[in-house]
Protein backbone atom coordinates (compact mmCIF):
# COMPACT_ATOMS: atom_id res chain seq x y z
CA UNK A 1 0.00 0.00 0.00
CA UNK A 2 2.91 2.36 0.53
CA UNK A 3 3.81 2.00 -3.14
CA UNK A 4 1.16 4.50 -4.19
CA UNK A 5 2.70 7.26 -2.10
CA UNK A 6 5.14 9.86 -3.28
CA UNK A 7 8.18 10.64 -1.18
CA UNK A 8 6.57 13.64 0.51
CA UNK A 9 3.45 11.76 1.61
CA UNK A 10 5.46 8.83 2.83
CA UNK A 11 7.63 11.13 4.95
CA UNK A 12 4.62 12.79 6.56
CA UNK A 13 2.86 9.54 7.40
CA UNK A 14 5.99 7.79 8.61
CA UNK A 15 6.52 10.60 11.10
CA UNK A 16 2.88 10.23 12.20
CA UNK A 17 3.40 6.52 12.67
CA UNK A 18 6.78 6.55 14.36
CA UNK A 19 6.60 9.58 16.67
CA UNK A 20 3.88 8.11 18.94
CA UNK A 21 5.66 4.76 18.86
CA UNK A 22 8.88 6.35 20.14
CA UNK A 23 6.95 8.05 22.94
CA UNK A 24 5.24 4.75 23.81
CA UNK A 25 8.58 2.95 23.85
CA UNK A 26 10.20 5.41 26.25
CA UNK A 27 7.40 6.15 28.71
CA UNK A 28 5.39 2.95 28.55
CA UNK A 29 7.16 -0.10 27.13
CA UNK A 30 10.41 0.68 28.94
CA UNK A 31 8.69 0.95 32.35
CA UNK A 32 6.82 -2.30 31.62
CA UNK A 33 10.07 -4.04 30.72
CA UNK A 34 11.52 -2.87 34.06
CA UNK A 35 8.77 -4.84 35.83
CA UNK A 36 9.67 -7.98 33.86
CA UNK A 37 13.36 -7.38 34.55
CA UNK A 38 12.89 -6.93 38.30
CA UNK A 39 10.97 -10.18 38.50
CA UNK A 40 14.07 -12.15 37.50
CA UNK A 41 16.76 -10.04 39.21
CA UNK A 42 15.41 -9.03 42.64
CA UNK A 43 16.41 -10.10 45.25
CA UNK A 44 18.77 -12.46 43.40
CA UNK A 45 19.09 -13.18 39.67
CA UNK A 46 17.15 -16.21 38.47
CA UNK A 47 13.70 -17.64 38.59
CA UNK A 48 13.52 -17.87 42.38
CA UNK A 49 10.47 -15.61 42.50
CA UNK A 50 8.67 -17.80 40.02
CA UNK A 51 9.33 -20.91 42.11
CA UNK A 52 7.06 -19.36 44.70
CA UNK A 53 4.17 -19.94 42.30
CA UNK A 54 4.69 -23.66 42.84
CA UNK A 55 5.67 -23.64 46.50
CA UNK A 56 3.78 -20.87 48.28
CA UNK A 57 0.28 -21.85 49.31
CA UNK A 58 -0.53 -18.20 50.12
CA UNK A 59 0.16 -17.19 46.51
CA UNK A 60 -1.70 -20.16 45.11
CA UNK A 61 -4.62 -19.22 47.32
CA UNK A 62 -4.67 -15.67 45.97
CA UNK A 63 -4.48 -16.88 42.36
CA UNK A 64 -7.24 -19.41 42.92
CA UNK A 65 -9.46 -16.78 44.58
CA UNK A 66 -8.82 -14.40 41.68
CA UNK A 67 -9.66 -16.98 39.02
CA UNK A 68 -12.76 -18.16 40.86
CA UNK A 69 -14.11 -14.63 41.34
CA UNK A 70 -13.34 -13.64 37.75
CA UNK A 71 -15.01 -16.72 36.24
CA UNK A 72 -18.10 -16.19 38.36
CA UNK A 73 -18.18 -12.47 37.61
CA UNK A 74 -17.78 -13.04 33.87
CA UNK A 75 -20.53 -15.63 33.70
CA UNK A 76 -23.01 -13.55 35.68
CA UNK A 77 -22.18 -10.35 33.79
CA UNK A 78 -22.59 -12.18 30.46
CA UNK A 79 -25.98 -13.66 31.31
CA UNK A 80 -27.32 -10.38 32.68
CA UNK A 81 -25.70 -8.34 29.90
CA UNK A 82 -27.14 -10.70 27.29
CA UNK A 83 -30.67 -10.24 28.60
CA UNK A 84 -30.28 -6.45 28.63
CA UNK A 85 -28.78 -6.33 25.13
CA UNK A 86 -31.42 -8.67 23.74
CA UNK A 87 -34.25 -6.61 25.23
CA UNK A 88 -32.65 -3.32 24.11
CA UNK A 89 -32.35 -4.58 20.52
CA UNK A 90 -35.83 -6.08 20.30
CA UNK A 91 -37.96 -3.63 22.26
CA UNK A 92 -39.50 -1.01 20.06
CA UNK A 93 -39.22 2.74 20.48
CA UNK A 94 -38.29 4.51 23.69
CA UNK A 95 -38.19 1.41 25.90
CA UNK A 96 -35.10 0.03 24.20
CA UNK A 97 -33.45 3.45 24.23
CA UNK A 98 -34.20 3.90 27.92
CA UNK A 99 -32.63 0.53 28.75
CA UNK A 100 -29.52 1.52 26.85
CA UNK A 101 -29.44 4.93 28.53
CA UNK A 102 -29.27 3.34 31.98
CA UNK A 103 -26.53 0.93 30.88
CA UNK A 104 -24.49 3.84 29.53
CA UNK A 105 -25.12 5.94 32.64
CA UNK A 106 -23.84 3.11 34.78
CA UNK A 107 -20.89 2.66 32.39
CA UNK A 108 -19.78 6.27 32.80
CA UNK A 109 -20.19 6.47 36.59
CA UNK A 110 -17.03 6.41 38.65
CA UNK A 111 -15.80 3.08 39.97
CA UNK A 112 -15.19 4.65 43.38
CA UNK A 113 -18.74 5.94 43.60
CA UNK A 114 -20.07 2.48 42.77
CA UNK A 115 -17.98 0.88 45.49
CA UNK A 116 -18.98 3.62 47.91
CA UNK A 117 -22.68 3.09 47.16
CA UNK A 118 -22.30 -0.65 47.77
CA UNK A 119 -20.43 -0.02 51.02
CA UNK A 120 -23.24 2.24 52.18
CA UNK A 121 -25.76 -0.48 51.42
CA UNK A 122 -23.89 -3.54 52.58
CA UNK A 123 -21.74 -2.73 55.59
CA UNK A 124 -22.76 -4.10 58.97
CA UNK A 125 -24.44 -0.82 59.97
CA UNK A 126 -25.43 -0.17 56.36
CA UNK A 127 -28.84 0.41 54.85
CA UNK A 128 -29.72 -3.22 54.12
CA UNK A 129 -28.71 -4.58 57.50
CA UNK A 130 -30.46 -1.71 59.29
CA UNK A 131 -33.67 -2.36 57.41
CA UNK A 132 -33.57 -6.10 57.93
CA UNK A 133 -33.01 -5.62 61.64
CA UNK A 134 -35.72 -2.94 61.94
CA UNK A 135 -38.19 -5.32 60.36
CA UNK A 136 -37.05 -8.03 62.74
CA UNK A 137 -35.99 -10.40 59.98
CA UNK A 138 -32.50 -10.83 61.43
CA UNK A 139 -31.03 -10.33 64.89
CA UNK A 140 -27.40 -9.69 64.01
CA UNK A 141 -26.08 -7.92 60.90
CA UNK A 142 -25.31 -10.18 57.95
CA UNK A 143 -21.74 -10.23 56.66
CA UNK A 144 -22.31 -8.79 53.21
CA UNK A 145 -18.87 -7.28 52.61
CA UNK A 146 -15.30 -8.27 53.47
CA UNK A 147 -16.05 -11.55 51.74
CA UNK A 148 -16.37 -13.00 48.25
CA UNK A 149 -20.09 -12.25 48.11
CA UNK A 150 -19.48 -8.52 48.35
CA UNK A 151 -16.61 -8.59 45.86
CA UNK A 152 -18.55 -10.57 43.24
CA UNK A 153 -21.62 -8.37 43.70
CA UNK A 154 -19.59 -5.20 43.20
CA UNK A 155 -17.65 -6.62 40.26
CA UNK A 156 -20.72 -7.94 38.44
CA UNK A 157 -22.30 -4.54 38.92
CA UNK A 158 -19.25 -2.91 37.33
CA UNK A 159 -18.87 -5.40 34.51
CA UNK A 160 -22.48 -5.61 33.25
CA UNK A 161 -22.08 -2.60 30.91
CA UNK A 162 -18.79 -4.03 29.60
CA UNK A 163 -20.66 -7.21 28.70
CA UNK A 164 -23.90 -5.61 27.52
CA UNK A 165 -22.46 -2.97 25.19
CA UNK A 166 -20.41 -5.27 22.88
CA UNK A 167 -23.33 -7.75 22.89
CA UNK A 168 -25.68 -4.96 21.89
CA UNK A 169 -23.41 -3.94 19.00
CA UNK A 170 -23.23 -7.56 17.86
CA UNK A 171 -26.98 -8.21 18.11
CA UNK A 172 -27.87 -5.09 16.17
CA UNK A 173 -26.05 -6.67 13.23
CA UNK A 174 -28.19 -9.84 13.34
CA UNK A 175 -30.98 -9.88 10.75
CA UNK A 176 -34.21 -9.40 12.79
CA UNK A 177 -36.20 -11.48 10.25
CA UNK A 178 -34.35 -14.71 11.06
CA UNK A 179 -36.16 -15.66 14.25
CA UNK A 180 -39.64 -14.91 12.82
CA UNK A 181 -38.63 -17.03 9.79
CA UNK A 182 -37.70 -19.93 12.06
CA UNK A 183 -40.97 -19.47 13.95
CA UNK A 184 -42.87 -19.43 10.67
CA UNK A 185 -41.24 -22.74 9.76
CA UNK A 186 -42.62 -24.29 12.93
CA UNK A 187 -39.88 -23.80 15.56
CA UNK A 188 -40.96 -22.77 19.05
CA UNK A 189 -39.62 -19.58 20.63
CA UNK A 190 -36.99 -21.40 22.72
CA UNK A 191 -35.94 -23.67 19.87
CA UNK A 192 -35.60 -20.82 17.38
CA UNK A 193 -33.55 -18.88 19.91
CA UNK A 194 -31.20 -21.79 20.67
CA UNK A 195 -30.76 -22.94 17.08
CA UNK A 196 -30.82 -19.64 15.21
CA UNK A 197 -30.20 -16.62 17.39
CA UNK A 198 -27.70 -17.93 19.94
CA UNK A 199 -25.21 -19.26 17.34
CA UNK A 200 -25.36 -15.92 15.50
CA UNK A 201 -24.64 -14.00 18.69
CA UNK A 202 -21.80 -16.32 19.70
CA UNK A 203 -19.00 -14.07 18.34
CA UNK A 204 -20.42 -11.24 20.42
CA UNK A 205 -20.57 -13.46 23.49
CA UNK A 206 -16.95 -14.52 23.05
CA UNK A 207 -15.75 -10.92 22.59
CA UNK A 208 -17.74 -9.67 25.55
CA UNK A 209 -16.52 -12.61 27.63
CA UNK A 210 -12.86 -11.92 26.85
CA UNK A 211 -13.17 -8.23 27.66
CA UNK A 212 -15.01 -8.88 30.90
CA UNK A 213 -12.67 -11.63 32.07
CA UNK A 214 -9.50 -9.68 31.26
CA UNK A 215 -10.74 -6.52 32.95
CA UNK A 216 -11.83 -8.57 35.96
CA UNK A 217 -8.42 -10.23 36.36
CA UNK A 218 -6.64 -6.95 36.95
CA UNK A 219 -9.35 -5.33 39.02
CA UNK A 220 -8.18 -3.41 42.05
CA UNK A 221 -10.57 -0.80 43.45
CA UNK A 222 -13.76 -2.82 43.94
CA UNK A 223 -12.11 -5.93 45.44
CA UNK A 224 -9.99 -3.73 47.72
CA UNK A 225 -12.98 -1.81 49.07
CA UNK A 226 -15.60 -4.57 49.18
CA UNK A 227 -13.15 -7.34 50.05
CA UNK A 228 -11.87 -5.18 52.91
CA UNK A 229 -8.49 -6.90 53.01
CA UNK A 230 -10.13 -10.26 53.72
CA UNK A 231 -10.82 -11.42 50.17
CA UNK A 232 -7.57 -10.65 48.35
CA UNK A 233 -7.35 -10.64 44.58
CA UNK A 234 -4.04 -10.58 42.77
CA UNK A 235 -3.89 -6.82 42.04
CA UNK A 236 -4.38 -5.93 45.68
CA UNK A 237 -1.94 -8.63 46.76
CA UNK A 238 0.69 -7.12 44.44
CA UNK A 239 0.05 -3.65 45.88
CA UNK A 240 0.47 -5.07 49.41
CA UNK A 241 3.81 -6.62 48.42
CA UNK A 242 5.09 -3.27 47.16
CA UNK A 243 3.62 -0.87 49.71
CA UNK A 244 3.72 -2.82 52.94
CA UNK A 245 6.56 -5.30 52.64
CA UNK A 246 8.60 -3.63 49.86
CA UNK A 247 8.90 -7.04 48.27
CA UNK A 248 9.56 -5.90 44.70
CA UNK A 249 10.74 -9.32 43.55
CA UNK A 250 7.51 -11.04 44.51
CA UNK A 251 5.33 -8.11 43.42
CA UNK A 252 6.92 -7.82 39.98
CA UNK A 253 6.84 -11.59 39.52
CA UNK A 254 3.09 -11.65 40.16
CA UNK A 255 2.59 -8.62 37.93
CA UNK A 256 4.51 -10.37 35.15
CA UNK A 257 2.52 -13.55 35.67
CA UNK A 258 -0.73 -11.58 35.47
CA UNK A 259 0.43 -9.84 32.30
CA UNK A 260 1.61 -13.03 30.61
CA UNK A 261 -1.60 -14.87 31.52
CA UNK A 262 -3.62 -12.14 29.87
CA UNK A 263 -1.51 -12.25 26.71
CA UNK A 264 -1.78 -16.04 26.66
CA UNK A 265 -5.57 -15.77 26.95
CA UNK A 266 -5.64 -13.28 24.10
CA UNK A 267 -3.47 -15.54 21.97
CA UNK A 268 -5.82 -18.48 22.53
CA UNK A 269 -8.85 -16.32 21.84
CA UNK A 270 -7.35 -14.95 18.62
CA UNK A 271 -7.83 -18.43 17.16
CA UNK A 272 -11.60 -18.05 17.49
CA UNK A 273 -12.21 -14.34 16.93
CA UNK A 274 -10.48 -11.46 15.19
CA UNK A 275 -8.96 -9.53 18.09
CA UNK A 276 -8.93 -6.33 16.07
CA UNK A 277 -12.72 -6.55 15.98
CA UNK A 278 -12.91 -7.23 19.71
CA UNK A 279 -10.95 -4.05 20.43
CA UNK A 280 -12.83 -2.06 17.85
CA UNK A 281 -10.14 -1.20 15.30
CA UNK A 282 -11.67 -3.07 12.41
Amino acid sequence: MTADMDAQTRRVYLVLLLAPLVVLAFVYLYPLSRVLWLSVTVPTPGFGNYERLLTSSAIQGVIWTTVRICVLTTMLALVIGYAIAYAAVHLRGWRGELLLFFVLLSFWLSVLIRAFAWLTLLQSRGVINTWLMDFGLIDAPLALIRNEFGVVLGMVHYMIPYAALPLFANMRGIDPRLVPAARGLGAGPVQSFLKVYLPMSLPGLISAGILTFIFSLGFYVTPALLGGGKTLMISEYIAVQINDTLNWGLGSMLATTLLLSIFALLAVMSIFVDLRKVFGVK
Partner: protein
Amino acid sequence: MELAPSKPFRLTVFGAWLAILFLTLPFAVVFPVSVTPHRYLSLPDGTWSSRHYQTLIDDLTWISSIGDSLIVATGSTLLAILLGTMTALACWRISTRASELVRMAMLAPMIVPSIVHALGFYQVWAQLGLLDTYAGLIIAHAMKGTPYVVISVSAALANVDLRLEQAARNLGATALQALWKVIIPAARPGMLAGSVFAFALSWDELVVTLFLTSRNVYTLPRKIWDGIQDNINPAIAAVAAILIVLTAVVMVARILLARRQARLATASVEP
Protein backbone atom coordinates in the same frame (compact mmCIF):
# COMPACT_ATOMS: atom_id res chain seq x y z
CA MET B 1 -46.71 -11.15 9.66
CA GLU B 2 -46.11 -9.83 13.16
CA LEU B 3 -45.74 -12.43 15.88
CA ALA B 4 -47.11 -11.64 19.30
CA PRO B 5 -44.27 -11.40 21.86
CA SER B 6 -43.64 -14.89 23.18
CA LYS B 7 -43.61 -15.71 26.86
CA PRO B 8 -39.82 -16.27 26.95
CA PHE B 9 -39.34 -12.85 25.33
CA ARG B 10 -41.55 -11.16 27.92
CA LEU B 11 -39.56 -12.94 30.64
CA THR B 12 -36.29 -11.72 29.12
CA VAL B 13 -37.56 -8.14 29.03
CA PHE B 14 -38.67 -8.44 32.64
CA GLY B 15 -35.22 -9.77 33.55
CA ALA B 16 -33.58 -6.90 31.68
CA TRP B 17 -35.55 -4.31 33.66
CA LEU B 18 -34.67 -6.10 36.91
CA ALA B 19 -31.03 -5.91 35.85
CA ILE B 20 -31.41 -2.18 35.20
CA LEU B 21 -32.81 -1.76 38.72
CA PHE B 22 -29.79 -3.65 40.04
CA LEU B 23 -27.52 -1.33 38.03
CA THR B 24 -29.11 1.94 39.08
CA LEU B 25 -30.71 1.51 42.52
CA PRO B 26 -27.42 1.32 44.44
CA PHE B 27 -26.61 4.80 43.15
CA ALA B 28 -29.92 6.10 44.47
CA VAL B 29 -28.83 5.41 48.05
CA VAL B 30 -26.22 8.18 48.02
CA PHE B 31 -28.86 10.92 47.68
CA PRO B 32 -30.63 10.36 51.03
CA VAL B 33 -27.34 9.58 52.75
CA SER B 34 -25.85 12.86 51.50
CA VAL B 35 -28.49 14.87 53.40
CA THR B 36 -28.25 12.96 56.67
CA PRO B 37 -27.94 15.29 59.67
CA HIS B 38 -25.53 12.85 61.37
CA ARG B 39 -21.75 12.85 61.27
CA TYR B 40 -21.67 9.23 60.26
CA LEU B 41 -23.01 7.35 57.24
CA SER B 42 -26.76 6.90 57.77
CA LEU B 43 -30.16 7.51 56.31
CA PRO B 44 -31.83 10.74 57.49
CA ASP B 45 -34.50 9.94 60.11
CA GLY B 46 -37.14 12.56 59.52
CA THR B 47 -34.85 15.59 59.43
CA TRP B 48 -32.26 16.45 56.86
CA SER B 49 -29.34 18.80 56.58
CA SER B 50 -27.10 20.29 53.92
CA ARG B 51 -24.06 20.22 56.22
CA HIS B 52 -22.18 17.68 54.11
CA TYR B 53 -22.54 19.84 51.03
CA GLN B 54 -21.33 22.76 53.12
CA THR B 55 -18.27 20.69 54.03
CA LEU B 56 -17.36 20.40 50.36
CA ILE B 57 -17.24 24.19 50.11
CA ASP B 58 -15.57 24.86 53.48
CA ASP B 59 -12.97 22.10 53.35
CA LEU B 60 -10.49 23.43 50.82
CA THR B 61 -8.96 19.99 50.14
CA TRP B 62 -12.12 18.97 48.24
CA ILE B 63 -11.97 22.01 45.98
CA SER B 64 -8.25 21.66 45.36
CA SER B 65 -8.57 17.94 44.61
CA ILE B 66 -11.17 18.76 41.95
CA GLY B 67 -8.73 21.35 40.56
CA ASP B 68 -5.91 18.79 40.45
CA SER B 69 -8.17 16.27 38.72
CA LEU B 70 -9.15 18.88 36.12
CA ILE B 71 -5.51 19.78 35.45
CA VAL B 72 -4.41 16.16 35.09
CA ALA B 73 -7.43 15.07 33.03
CA THR B 74 -7.14 18.04 30.66
CA GLY B 75 -3.40 17.64 30.16
CA SER B 76 -3.53 13.89 29.64
CA THR B 77 -6.51 14.18 27.27
CA LEU B 78 -4.65 16.66 25.05
CA LEU B 79 -1.59 14.41 24.93
CA ALA B 80 -3.72 11.32 24.26
CA ILE B 81 -5.54 13.06 21.39
CA LEU B 82 -2.22 14.04 19.83
CA LEU B 83 -0.65 10.57 20.06
CA GLY B 84 -3.81 8.61 19.30
CA THR B 85 -4.80 10.70 16.29
CA MET B 86 -1.30 10.51 14.79
CA THR B 87 -1.34 6.73 15.07
CA ALA B 88 -4.83 6.33 13.63
CA LEU B 89 -4.07 8.68 10.72
CA ALA B 90 -0.85 6.87 9.85
CA CYS B 91 -2.47 3.44 10.05
CA TRP B 92 -5.37 4.58 7.89
CA ARG B 93 -3.04 5.84 5.15
CA ILE B 94 -0.21 3.30 5.34
CA SER B 95 -2.18 0.14 6.21
CA THR B 96 0.59 -2.45 6.13
CA ARG B 97 1.34 -5.33 8.49
CA ALA B 98 3.96 -3.15 10.17
CA SER B 99 1.53 -0.30 10.76
CA GLU B 100 -1.02 -2.77 12.16
CA LEU B 101 1.61 -3.95 14.63
CA VAL B 102 2.24 -0.36 15.69
CA ARG B 103 -1.48 0.12 16.21
CA MET B 104 -1.71 -3.02 18.36
CA ALA B 105 1.26 -1.79 20.40
CA MET B 106 -0.48 1.54 20.97
CA LEU B 107 -3.53 -0.36 22.28
CA ALA B 108 -1.44 -2.23 24.88
CA PRO B 109 -2.16 0.13 27.80
CA MET B 110 -5.84 -0.76 27.45
CA ILE B 111 -5.15 -4.46 28.02
CA VAL B 112 -2.33 -4.35 30.56
CA PRO B 113 -3.79 -4.29 34.10
CA SER B 114 -3.36 -0.99 35.91
CA ILE B 115 -1.36 -2.50 38.73
CA VAL B 116 1.25 -3.83 36.27
CA HIS B 117 2.00 -0.55 34.56
CA ALA B 118 1.65 1.29 37.86
CA LEU B 119 4.70 -0.64 39.13
CA GLY B 120 6.62 0.16 35.95
CA PHE B 121 5.78 3.88 36.04
CA TYR B 122 6.73 4.02 39.70
CA GLN B 123 10.17 2.51 39.07
CA VAL B 124 11.05 4.74 36.13
CA TRP B 125 9.40 7.91 37.44
CA ALA B 126 11.45 7.55 40.64
CA GLN B 127 14.65 7.60 38.56
CA LEU B 128 13.46 10.58 36.49
CA GLY B 129 12.20 12.59 39.47
CA LEU B 130 8.65 12.57 38.10
CA LEU B 131 6.98 11.11 41.19
CA ASP B 132 4.27 13.32 42.67
CA THR B 133 4.45 15.82 39.78
CA TYR B 134 1.68 16.91 37.45
CA ALA B 135 3.80 16.02 34.42
CA GLY B 136 4.40 12.50 35.73
CA LEU B 137 0.73 11.76 36.30
CA ILE B 138 -0.33 13.45 33.05
CA ILE B 139 2.05 11.29 30.99
CA ALA B 140 0.90 8.09 32.71
CA HIS B 141 -2.78 8.91 32.25
CA ALA B 142 -2.19 9.94 28.64
CA MET B 143 -0.73 6.51 27.91
CA LYS B 144 -3.91 4.92 29.28
CA GLY B 145 -6.14 7.28 27.29
CA THR B 146 -4.35 6.97 23.94
CA PRO B 147 -5.84 3.55 22.95
CA TYR B 148 -9.36 4.96 23.17
CA VAL B 149 -8.44 7.82 20.85
CA VAL B 150 -6.77 5.38 18.42
CA ILE B 151 -9.96 3.29 18.34
CA SER B 152 -12.43 6.12 17.90
CA VAL B 153 -10.37 8.01 15.30
CA SER B 154 -9.79 4.74 13.39
CA ALA B 155 -13.55 4.20 13.41
CA ALA B 156 -14.17 7.73 12.13
CA LEU B 157 -11.64 7.23 9.31
CA ALA B 158 -12.89 3.77 8.35
CA ASN B 159 -15.40 5.22 5.91
CA VAL B 160 -13.14 7.95 4.52
CA ASP B 161 -12.04 7.17 0.97
CA LEU B 162 -8.26 7.03 0.52
CA ARG B 163 -8.69 8.78 -2.83
CA LEU B 164 -9.82 11.91 -0.97
CA GLU B 165 -6.21 12.50 -0.02
CA GLN B 166 -5.02 11.89 -3.56
CA ALA B 167 -7.68 14.21 -4.94
CA ALA B 168 -6.47 16.98 -2.64
CA ARG B 169 -2.87 16.34 -3.75
CA ASN B 170 -3.84 16.39 -7.43
CA LEU B 171 -5.51 19.73 -6.91
CA GLY B 172 -2.18 21.11 -5.73
CA ALA B 173 -2.18 20.63 -1.95
CA THR B 174 1.06 19.53 -0.28
CA ALA B 175 0.89 16.35 1.81
CA LEU B 176 0.67 18.42 4.98
CA GLN B 177 -2.05 20.66 3.57
CA ALA B 178 -4.09 17.64 2.50
CA LEU B 179 -3.67 16.20 5.97
CA TRP B 180 -4.59 19.39 7.78
CA LYS B 181 -7.43 20.61 5.57
CA VAL B 182 -9.00 17.38 4.33
CA ILE B 183 -8.16 14.36 6.48
CA ILE B 184 -8.11 15.83 9.98
CA PRO B 185 -11.56 17.46 9.57
CA ALA B 186 -12.87 14.01 8.66
CA ALA B 187 -11.23 12.57 11.79
CA ARG B 188 -12.63 15.25 14.10
CA PRO B 189 -15.76 13.38 15.33
CA GLY B 190 -13.51 10.48 16.32
CA MET B 191 -11.10 12.81 18.08
CA LEU B 192 -13.99 14.28 20.06
CA ALA B 193 -15.39 10.88 21.04
CA GLY B 194 -11.93 9.63 21.99
CA SER B 195 -11.22 12.70 24.08
CA VAL B 196 -14.40 12.09 26.12
CA PHE B 197 -13.11 8.60 26.92
CA ALA B 198 -9.60 9.79 27.71
CA PHE B 199 -10.90 12.55 29.98
CA ALA B 200 -13.31 10.27 31.86
CA LEU B 201 -10.58 7.66 32.26
CA SER B 202 -8.15 10.11 33.82
CA TRP B 203 -10.85 11.77 35.93
CA ASP B 204 -11.67 8.38 37.50
CA GLU B 205 -8.18 6.83 37.56
CA LEU B 206 -6.98 5.63 40.94
CA VAL B 207 -4.50 2.74 40.81
CA VAL B 208 -1.69 4.51 38.92
CA THR B 209 -2.42 7.68 40.89
CA LEU B 210 -1.99 5.83 44.19
CA PHE B 211 1.50 4.76 43.15
CA LEU B 212 2.70 7.97 41.49
CA THR B 213 1.46 10.72 43.78
CA SER B 214 1.43 11.55 47.47
CA ARG B 215 0.83 15.11 48.66
CA ASN B 216 1.73 17.52 45.91
CA VAL B 217 -0.71 16.14 43.36
CA TYR B 218 -3.92 15.09 45.07
CA THR B 219 -6.77 14.18 42.74
CA LEU B 220 -10.46 13.72 43.52
CA PRO B 221 -10.44 9.88 43.29
CA ARG B 222 -7.49 9.90 45.68
CA LYS B 223 -9.38 12.14 48.09
CA ILE B 224 -12.47 9.88 47.91
CA TRP B 225 -10.31 6.78 48.37
CA ASP B 226 -8.58 8.21 51.44
CA GLY B 227 -11.96 9.32 52.77
CA ILE B 228 -13.38 5.81 52.44
CA GLN B 229 -10.27 4.25 54.01
CA ASP B 230 -10.12 6.53 57.07
CA ASN B 231 -13.69 6.85 58.21
CA ILE B 232 -16.56 6.83 55.82
CA ASN B 233 -17.64 10.43 55.83
CA PRO B 234 -21.07 11.44 54.45
CA ALA B 235 -19.28 14.24 52.54
CA ILE B 236 -18.31 11.49 50.09
CA ALA B 237 -22.02 10.83 49.56
CA ALA B 238 -22.45 14.52 48.73
CA VAL B 239 -19.61 14.35 46.16
CA ALA B 240 -21.08 11.15 44.75
CA ALA B 241 -24.53 12.72 44.44
CA ILE B 242 -23.08 15.71 42.57
CA LEU B 243 -21.04 13.50 40.23
CA ILE B 244 -24.02 11.25 39.46
CA VAL B 245 -26.23 14.23 38.59
CA LEU B 246 -23.42 15.76 36.53
CA THR B 247 -22.88 12.54 34.57
CA ALA B 248 -26.59 12.19 33.84
CA VAL B 249 -26.85 15.83 32.73
CA VAL B 250 -23.88 15.51 30.38
CA MET B 251 -25.32 12.32 28.89
CA VAL B 252 -28.75 13.81 28.31
CA ALA B 253 -27.14 16.92 26.79
CA ARG B 254 -25.11 14.73 24.41
CA ILE B 255 -28.22 12.82 23.33
CA LEU B 256 -30.18 16.03 22.72
CA LEU B 257 -27.25 17.52 20.79
CA ALA B 258 -26.94 14.40 18.62
CA ARG B 259 -30.70 14.51 17.90
CA ARG B 260 -30.52 18.17 16.93
CA GLN B 261 -27.57 17.53 14.63
CA ALA B 262 -29.41 14.62 13.02
CA ARG B 263 -32.46 16.85 12.49
CA LEU B 264 -30.34 19.61 10.98
CA ALA B 265 -28.62 17.10 8.72
CA THR B 266 -31.92 15.75 7.34
CA ALA B 267 -33.30 19.30 7.06
CA SER B 268 -30.35 20.41 4.96
CA VAL B 269 -30.75 17.49 2.55
CA GLU B 270 -34.42 18.16 2.00
CA PRO B 271 -35.01 21.17 -0.23
